[in-house]
């Protein structure tokens, strides 16, 4: 068993190196968010800056309850949207995975086609705002685009098809279960790893999205955290950019810019960093549960 130990050791080393490399830039961002603006410009980004300051975070705090509210919006949209999405996605994937289903190839093509062709934002916008009236509502953040992703559907279908033996399905059928019962009682419990995977992907997609907000939300009450950060950032840039100097009056504003961008990045990913460990256990759970006799 020494070969196994050696393998493990090598793996650990390689992974550690990769992780350190991956984290370095992020550490840099966090440090930069705590660095004084003038030091940042003079010395560039450093791991050990000459001068630390909380200015960037004070600036963000001054925005005050807007930030809290948009965190709330983001959380609501992410959890709500992900839950519904997972449900719809697995329900769509299951028939595609059943070899006995007459239309499975059709369905597969139907789903995949949406990954390739896209009518652009204008028709979508017209449809969602004029027929479904979702503009400036919380639904505008949840429904367009992310609720069912063809990529996720195909991933789940794959998992159903390859990692769950047909014998189980046949056994259930012999027991007189309906398709729906098979889906709920057999497929879902065994598909925990893939469900966790698409929950993670969908959650990240919702959390990071700001385009839905850009198109469909004007009321700041419904800004997600990413849209809020975009707004703060773009306003700073617009005010700083000299091509806009001719657009503005003598409204002088004091804005710490670079460190604020870094603070924003930190604020943007913080919640996920905190929550992820809880989600993670389901991903690796399958290692224990996945064993199937026969």
């Amino acid at each position, binding site marked *: 068993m020494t070969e196994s130990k050696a393998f493990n050791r090598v793996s650990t080393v390689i992974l550690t190196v990769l992780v350190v490399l991956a984290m370095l830039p992020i550490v840099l961002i966090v440090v930069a968010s705590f660095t004084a*603006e*003038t*030091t*940042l*410009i*003079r010395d560039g980004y450093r791991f050990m800056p000459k001068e630390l300051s909380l200015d960037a975070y004070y600036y963000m705090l*001054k*925005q005050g309850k*807007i930030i809290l509210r948009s965190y709330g919006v983001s959380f609501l949209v992410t959890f709500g949207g992900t839950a519904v999405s997972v449900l719809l996605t697995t329900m769509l994937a299951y028939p595609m995975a059943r070899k006995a289903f007459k*239309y499975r*190839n*059709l369905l597969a*093509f*139907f789903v995949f*086609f949406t990954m390739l062709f896209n009518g652009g*934002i*204008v*028709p979508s*916008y*017209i*449809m969602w*705002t*004029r*027929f479904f009236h979702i503009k400036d509502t919380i639904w505008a953040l949840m429904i367009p685009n992310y609720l069912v992703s063809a990529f996720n559907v195909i991933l789940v279908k794959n998992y159903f098809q390859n990692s769950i033996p047909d014998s189980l399905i046949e056994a259930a059928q012999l027991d007189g279960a309906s398709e729906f019962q098979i889906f709920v009682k057999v497929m879902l419990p065994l598909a925990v790893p893939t469900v966790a995977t698409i929950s993670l992907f969908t959650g990240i997609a919702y959390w990071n999205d700001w385009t839905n907000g*850009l*198109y469909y939300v*004007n*009321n*700041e*009450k419904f800004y997600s955290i990413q849209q809020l950060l*975009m*707004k703060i950032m*773009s*306003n700073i*840039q*617009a*005010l*700083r*950019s*000299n*091509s806009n*100097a*001719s*657009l*503005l*009056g*003598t*409204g*002088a*504003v*004091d*804005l710490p*810019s*670079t460190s604020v961008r870094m603070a924003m990045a930190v604020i943007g990913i913080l919640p996920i960093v905190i929550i992820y460990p809880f989600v993670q256990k389901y991903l690796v759970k399958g290692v224990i549960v996945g064993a199937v006799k026969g």
Partner: protein
Amino acid sequence: MRNVKRFLSLILTVAMTLGMVACGAAETASTDSAASTDSAKEAAAESSTPGSYDQVTYAYCTFNNIPTEEDLDVVEEAINEITREKIGAEITLMPIQIFEYSSKINLALQGGEKIDIFESLGDFGSYVSSDMCYDITDLIDTYAPGAKETVGDSWLDACKSNGVLYGIPTMKPIALTPMLIYRQDIADELGIDISKVNSIEDVTEVLEAVKAGKPDMIPLAAVQTGEIGLSTNYGEVDFLNDDRYKPIGVLVGDDLTVTDLYGTDHFRDLCKLVRGWYNNGLVMQDAATTNSAAAETMSSGNYFGYLAAYSYPEEDTAASLEAQVAGYDLGAKIIGDAYLSTSDINAITFMVASTTDVPEAALKFLDLTYTDEDIINLLIYGIEGRDYVKNADGSVSYPEGQDAATVPYTAQLSCGTLGNFFKMYQMGVANDASLEWELEQNKSAKTSPAMGFTFDSSNVKTQYTAVLNVISQYLPGLICGSLDPDTEIDKFIQALNDAGYQDILNEKQTQLDAWKAGK
């Protein structure tokens, strides 16, 4: 596979039918409103019955926070009290953040939403060519005479295309004078006589003095990405509707021949000048790609100055910029003359949407923003007492303990983008003498001979995309000194010609000649 094909065609048919129905409805909405422009005149007449006012939606861009519905309503109501009386209309305010303004306006109009007045932010030409603006040539005399008079006929010409008037430019200090903004304290310390600096070539000496006296400082900072100030110092060049940072075919001086800017000796000399600066360490090395705008880099204390163009007098400019650069003492020196071209004037133009059903009312309200002090100040500052207070000297400030982020409503930072700047209360720095100087500049700045000409690029769209890409590739490097002009300018011109540059120049010349003939 056969099943797939059948299904596919079924789906497409269903999608198309549903889509047609959807668009049919959208269509009828917009064709209705387009067709009803004639009947709108009668409708406007009959809607002056009490209790039914014209509804005008005014979409403007703001740099401040967007207020809540309730707070906005109060301001709207205050405005409506005036407008009901004066023009028989009620206004709905639609403030939109600057960074999403253009996309939201485009989407909203394309989606058939009601927006009656909106502004262009430098893209006047493209709004005109996608038919988004209402033709107000005949209406302006009747419904917006005040605005017309304030702005003046020659400025209005800048908002015409093919003889048709599409909008009204904002009334504000527009003439941009190229200036050197520099650290006053360092200049004093090194004994540099700034009054001798009257052109961009003179700047070299100053930069060298700074380099010699303060070797750790980088004398010249970039104004913004890919720009160290050269494009504001071309002299009397009219960019013929292009973005000043990506000009394609320009007019030089009084000559009405469309010229290739990049082939001129003047351009070559400027590039050589900057290249010299670059090689001697007088300018920031990464200017072509830097992320930081001048204000940021200046705050670090590591840079001496930058070149930009502003429309305010020297002292005002320096004073207002000081707050942005962490309080360093700044000075401003004019190094060139202002030059007005069409795109400077129509950069911010207020237009009536082509899909509007109340063009007259919209114009009347627009007129008020140029002539009525109360309206304009309500728009910019909000409600007196709640959102701002008046000071003894006539200026205004935020109420005790509040600022731009905490008051219920403010659009103070939009003060250069709405209506008539000169009728607004001033916050902070400016005073009457400055206002006069600015008005004077507006009137007396040299104007391009092509004032009033707007270029329609639809015939050369393909070339435009290719040429713009070539420009993005070479120009920032050339005007920031990181590319060697001796070798690269020729390559640049060659690449431009390969991309169809000459076609665009020819097209501009043709249109320019036609415009000239039609005058």
